[in-house]
């Protein structure tokens, strides 16, 4: 495998009394599809949010594409980055939320072009053409002018994936992308994600879909109480887990 795109080293995070992450270390390599599984409250979503800095880490560090996130080393001390610098670092990641979070006052197409036009300063016509291409890719070209409220949950989530891809990120983060969907809509979102994985995109997916993890993931990481219990090849972790906690979790969800 190639160099790590994400290097997480000894990251801890506490919310008040609750320790969400306990000295977590993890590598994600270019083109890798990594699924994070575990019970709710195990820290997998927090870990994902730390990578695009919606949550800041308390200690430890995350390097994305060789660059330390949120901090700058100078004269043997660490300095916090400015909000502008953090915004620039965020452009390397695309985030897909559990509750879609599409902009309700903008059409599907406008949702996708918003970032490229407003943040990256790209030409409106170019951004529109690329957004249409992305909508075709997620199978929603006919819904370009629909508002989010006119779309089903599965359609909204596919637009949200297109919106994240429009920024041309090097890493896609998925935070339980199918948990808020009606069961019959899960498949359409997963198939878009499978296509994305096949195209070579590096992906970190927090999910409860063990079937998806088995089929698509290169690596599966099982987390419990803020720590990584077991990680390895998807077939090994899901097929022949070494740890008793992993076994009992898997037997509960399958």
């Amino acid at each position: 495998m190639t160099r790590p795109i994400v290097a997480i080293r000894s990251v801890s995070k506490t919310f008040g009394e609750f320790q969400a992450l306990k000295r977590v270390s993890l590598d994600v390599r270019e083109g890798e599809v990594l699924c994070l599984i575990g019970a709710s409250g195990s820290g997998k979503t927090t870990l994902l949010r730390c990578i695009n800095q919606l949550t800041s880490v308390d200690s430890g560090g995350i390097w994305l594409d060789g660059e330390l996130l949120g901090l700058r080393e100078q004269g043997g001390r660490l300095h916090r980055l400015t909000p502008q610098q953090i915004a620039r670092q965020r452009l390397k990641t695309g985030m897909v939320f559990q509750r879609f979070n599409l902009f309700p006052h903008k059409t599907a197409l406008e949702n996708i072009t918003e970032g490229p036009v407003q943040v990256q300063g790209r030409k409106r016509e170019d951004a529109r053409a690329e957004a249409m291409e992305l909508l075709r890719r997620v199978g929603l070209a006919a819904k370009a002018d629909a508002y989010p409220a006119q779309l089903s949950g599965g359609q909204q989530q596919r637009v949200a994936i297109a919106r994240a891809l429009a920024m041309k990120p090097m890493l896609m983060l998925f935070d339980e992308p199918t948990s808020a969907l009606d069961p019959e809509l899960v498949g359409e979102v997963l198939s878009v994600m499978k296509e994305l994985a096949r195209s070579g995109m590096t992906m970190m997916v927090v999910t409860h879909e063990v079937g998806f993890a088995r089929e698509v993931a290169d690596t599966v990481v099982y987390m419990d109480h803020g720590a990584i219990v077991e990680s390895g090849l998807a077939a090994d972790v899901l097929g022949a887990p070494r740890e008793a906690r992993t076994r009992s979790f898997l037997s509960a969800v399958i």
Partner: protein
Amino acid sequence: MTAAHTLAGGFPDISKMTVARQAHWRRWLTAAAIVVVLAAIGRAFAGGQIEWAYVGRFLAAKVILEGIANTMVMAVLAMAVGIVLGVVVAIMRLSPNPVLTSVAAGYTWLFRGTPLILQLLLWFNLALVFPTIGIPGLWSARAVDVMTPFLSALLGLGLNQGAYTSEVMRAGMLSVDAGQYEAAQAIGMGRLRALRRIILPQAMRVVIPPLGNEFIGMVKATSLASVIQYPEVLHNAENIYYANSRVIELLIVAGFWYLLVVSILTPLQMLLERRFARGALQLAR
């Protein structure tokens, strides 16, 4: 196939029958009572000491029309000042910077905590505190020349309105789901851009009904500027009745114009609401 036709289980077939209209006799009774009361009030006024001819004569008098024009100019400008200030102060109030938060809270506390008429009088009488105002070495002028009734009224009404509008705006911004701000951040937007492009447009939908309320309040609040000689409609009506003693007639004239303006504003507000309901129409119905 007659009425004797029955459905499975012996139930009668009611699909061809019509539903009889309800009588609503209580509604007719209350309506009649209200008409009687209104007629009595109308009759009392018709027979009272009101020279309706004067009302008609002054309704469209030049001074009155100028007055209502001045009222509208002041209401629109002061509301514009209030909205701009309100947005800025609401953004400051919600900022992570404690200095900005305190300044915003202090402004709201001061301008909401004192009567509007007192603030108008203070601005108008600023010359008593500072005989000359200006920037040292660059520009200066006598305060009495600068603080005209127009400027005093604009500052007094606008700054006061800003304090109220900031709270309306803050409520609107808080009503937008936190996930919207996160989604904006995730596509690389900074705080101000996210507010301008994503949060404020969604807040507007919530904010327009209370803002319409505030604007109607502002139209009427301009009448307070009569105490500092701003020639709005009530001030001009007063000037006329000081001369001809037709007090009630001219108050009715002024009241008519306020009512007319407010009646026109209500449908305008509905148009604005529709404009900002983009993407939510089918939910609002």
